[in-house]
Structures are given as structure tokens and as C-alpha cells.
């Protein structure tokens, strides 16, 4: 790991917007530092704003207040330096696997041969050799997500942002993909900010877990996961950390449910 450089620096981030129901404060004084090569999970109940944080870092949404810096520069707009993987895969259906992966390179006008080299390596890395010319509709969910990861990696981003990427997959595929993700990550050590619902997933994947409060979202607790990878889901340490995180989370879940039920 290269140094302890802070890659993502979020301070006093706030986000609010107005709906028919009135003013909604999604984030209130959210703060986080992510260092280079770290794998950080954002965990929290529905509506806590974890996806909002991710999208603001990605530059897809605007913040209402505070500062969000990536590599020292304030985030203004989306860009290939912050690659993103979406829960819905977001692959371009009219493009083949290879063409999807090469999209960002095309945008940068990278010449064809160079593009082919890059995509070839990535296809192999994510384990899709042989499927270069397949179209997304021919792929399973897990395979689609592999393409999405490769696509984001093709631009050699500073940061990889992942928004519940395995949420649409069945349990078995999900476990498999978690393992695969770690394998890929060990080959390309990016800084990862990973949003999830699942405590199990967070404990399995992350160096640090950021537990968020119910809306308005802020950091409730940051829990370290100092276990060596690959992690054993049945080990005592694993279970202990999982219980701890779950404990923190349950209270927030209750709060979120209460908020949903009470008319505001």
C-alpha cells in the first residue's frame, strides 16, 4: 500500500432538497476520509443517504453544503477518474462486452489497437474470456457486473465507487462475486467506496465500515475490520465484528422504520 495519502476527503457534507411533502434533509454534516488503497463500506438503513454520498462523490449529484475533495480537488462534475458501478449494471445493451469496456477509452479517443489491448487484459482479469463479443442480454447478472467493473477500471480511475453492485444478484452469485471482487481488487489496488445494505457483505469486504444514521444521514460509527483476507465467514472474529456492526445498525433501522410510519 502506498502511503497514507487521503484520496477522498469529505467534510461537513450536507444535502437537502424540496419535495411535495416539504423540505427533506438527506445528509447533515457527513464527514469521511478515505485513504489510498482502502476498501471502505458505507452501511445504513434505507433512505439514510449512503447512495447520495456516493453520487455526490461521483459528481452525479450536487451537494448543498460542505466540501468533497478527491485527490485534493473539489468535485464538480462526473468524470472517468471516479469510476462507478451501478446496481442495475447500466451496460449499454447495443454494445458487446468488449465495446462496453472500451467506451471510456473511445470517449478519450484512444486508438483502436490500444483499446483492444486494454480491454483484452481486463476481460481476462474479470474472468470473461471467450465472451468478448457477447451482448449484455446474453449474460447472467454476475457476468454483467463483471463487465461493469471492467468498464470502470478501463479508465484507470483514482477511485472506484460501487452502489450496491450485488444487490440484484441471488445469494450464491453474490457470495461468488464478493470473492471475485476481492480477487480483482488485489490485482488492481484501487481505492474503493462501496455502498451496501448487507452487514455480512460489509464485514467480508471492507477495511473499514462506516455505519450511517437514519435520515438525516451522518456518520454514526466507523468500525475497523482488521481481519486478513480471504476472510472466513464462520470464524469467531468475523461473527464478533458482525454482531457489533449489527448492534449499531439495528437502532438506526428502528429509527428509519418509525420515520417511515409516522406521517410527517
Amino acid at each position, binding site marked *: 500500500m502506498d502511503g497514507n495519502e487521503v484520496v477522498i476527503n469529505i467534510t461537513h457534507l450536507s444535502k437537502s432538497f424540496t419535495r411535495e411533502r416539504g423540505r427533506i434533509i438527506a445528509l447533515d454534516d457527513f464527514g469521511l476520509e478515505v485513504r489510498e488503497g482502502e476498501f471502505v463500506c458505507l452501511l445504513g438503513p434505507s433512505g439514510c443517504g449512503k447512495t447520495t454520498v456516493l453520487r455526490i462523490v461521483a459528481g452525479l449529484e450536487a451537494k448543498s453544503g460542505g466540501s468533497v475533495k478527491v485527490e485534493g480537488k473539489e468535485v464538480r462534475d*462526473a468524470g472517468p477518474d471516479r469510476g462507478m458501478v451501478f446496481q442495475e449494471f447500466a451496460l449499454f445493451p447495443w454494445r458487446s462486452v468488449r465495446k462496453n469496456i472500451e467506451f471510456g477509452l473511445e470517449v478519450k479517443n484512444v486508438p483502436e489497437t490500444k483499446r483492444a489491448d486494454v480491454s483484452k487484459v481486463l476481460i481476462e482479469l474479470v474472468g470473461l474470456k471467450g465472451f468478448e463479443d457477447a451482448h449484455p442480454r446474453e449474460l447472467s447478472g454476475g457476468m454483467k457486473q463483471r463487465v461493469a467493473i471492467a468498464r470502470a477500471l478501463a479508465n484507470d480511475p483514482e477511485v472506484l465507487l460501487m452502489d450496491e453492485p450485488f444487490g440484484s444478484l441471488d445469494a450464491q452469485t453474490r457470495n461468488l462475486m464478493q470473492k471475485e471482487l476481492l480477487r480483482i481488487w488485489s490485482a488492481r489496488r484501487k481505492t474503493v467506496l462501496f455502498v451496501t445494505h448487507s452487514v455480512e457483505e460489509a464485514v467480508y469486504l471492507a477495511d473499514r465500515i462506516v455505519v450511517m444514521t437514519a435520515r438525516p444521514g451522518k456518520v454514526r460509527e466507523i468500525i475497523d475490520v482488521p481481519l486478513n483476507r480471504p476472510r472466513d465467514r464462520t470464524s469467531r472474529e468475523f461473527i464478533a465484528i458482525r454482531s457489533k456492526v449489527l448492534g449499531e445498525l439495528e437502532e438506526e433501522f428502528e429509527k428509519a422504520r418509525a420515520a417511515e410510519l409516522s406521517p410527517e
Partner: protein
Amino acid sequence: MRSLTKSLSKAVISNWLRLTLSAVSVAVFLTIWWLLSAYLRADWPFLGVKPYPLSTYERLPYWWDVLRALGRSFVTNPSPTGGRFMSEHILASLTRISIGFALALISAVPLGLLMGRSRNAEAVGRPLVELFRPIPPLAWVPIFLVVFKFFWGPIAIVFLGVFFPILLNVRLGARSVDPVLIDAARTLGARRSTIFVKVVLPFTTPYLMTGITVGLGIGWMCIVAAEMLGGVGGGVGYYIFAANTAGLYDLVYAGMVMIGILSVLTTGVAGLIERWVYRWMGMK
């Protein structure tokens, strides 16, 4: 050549059930037609029945008579309706459809994209579209024939008929672009114009193709009706209209069959173009 026949015969064999069903359906239709015609004129197998008046059953000739009339219309019978062969009428109608269609395509696609992506453009265009769209193109026939004269009149009618389906479908497609695809494109470094070319356009293409298919069908209806109403020089629609006035009903049906064939031709070609464009857009 051999591989083409091989793959075609493979296609036939693997789809034999569907092909058989289609063939059976056509056979049933033709049989019913024959029976109806025979019944009206008390021909075999309805020999004991009282025949209908000539003016009734003449309007439902036997289907083989229709096919024969169709064949003859190309060769030995310069159509008494127009003094021209069917081939010349086909050419006239095809020319009008092609030009009208091309003009509609050129104008409706950019307009649809614009209205689909820009709220302001939508606000400007919407009232005009909603005003003119419900007016059947045929209503314009008398006006257009006088204003645009014989050559451009029917073309203008086709234009109107084809324009709106394409416009509306393209607009819908442009509006329906999955926002997550746009998000993804943004995170991959694409700016607005690149997003338009690499995401909006390909996404809209299938909608465009639907618009084209619908538009082509309407275009054929318009041209035939315009030719029928207008007495404007030639064309398959005119052929039907003139044969009707002269009471030559086997020619009327022959003309209708001809239109069906031409429609299959154009719609089929449009479908093939659709696949080609799809492939082009995808591989691009």
C-alpha cells in the same frame, strides 16, 4: 450460393411448424374465398343454389382470376385504366412513397430528438404537433393537389402520413433514455455531445425503426387513398380507383394484391435496414 440455399433450407426445416401453420392459414383463406365466390354465382359445389345477381358476384371474382388479371396487367393488357402497364403504375407509386418518406425522415428525426431532449423545444413544438397530428392526411388531399400540383401533391400527403409516427416515436425514444445509462456515460467521461451521439442516438434507434415501420404502412395507405381520390396521374391506387369506376373488379382485386406485395417489399426492406442500423450503431 450453395451456402445460402443451405442456410435457407435449414431455416425452413427448423421452422417447419410455423411455416406449415402459415401455409395452412393461407390455404384456408383461399378456400373460403373460393367457396364464397362459388356460392354467389351458384357454381360447383353449390350447384343447387340460386345465384345472386351478376352485379353482386362480379364483385367477388375467383382468386385465381384475380391472380391472372394481375399477371396480365403487366403484359398483354396495358391497363385499360390509364393505357399503361402495371409496372409503370408501380413505379409511379413507389417514387412518390420514396420521396415523401425520405423527406419525412429527414425532418422528423432531428425534430423528434430535439423535442425529446429539450424541454423548451418540446414546449414550442407540442401545440403544433397536437393540432396537426389528429387531422387525417387524406383531408389535405384536395388542398395539396391544387397547391402542390400533380407531382408534389401526393408526395406531400405521404409526407404528412409518415412524419408524425416517426416524430412521435423518436421523441418518445429520446425521452425514454434510461437515466442510469446517462449516469454511467458521465462517469466514463462523456460530455453532453458525446452522450448524445453514443447513448441517446443508439438508444432511440429501435424507436425510430418502429416509427418507420408504422410510418411506411400509413404512407402506403395515404398514397393509395390520395391516388384514388385525386385522379392524379397513375399509381396503383389510381389503378384501383379507375378499375372500380369501369366495373372491372378482377382488376380492382389485382391492384389490392399488388399493394399488399409492395407493402411486404417495403416493410421487409425497412425491417432489414433496421437490423443493419442496429448492428452499425452497436458496433460503432
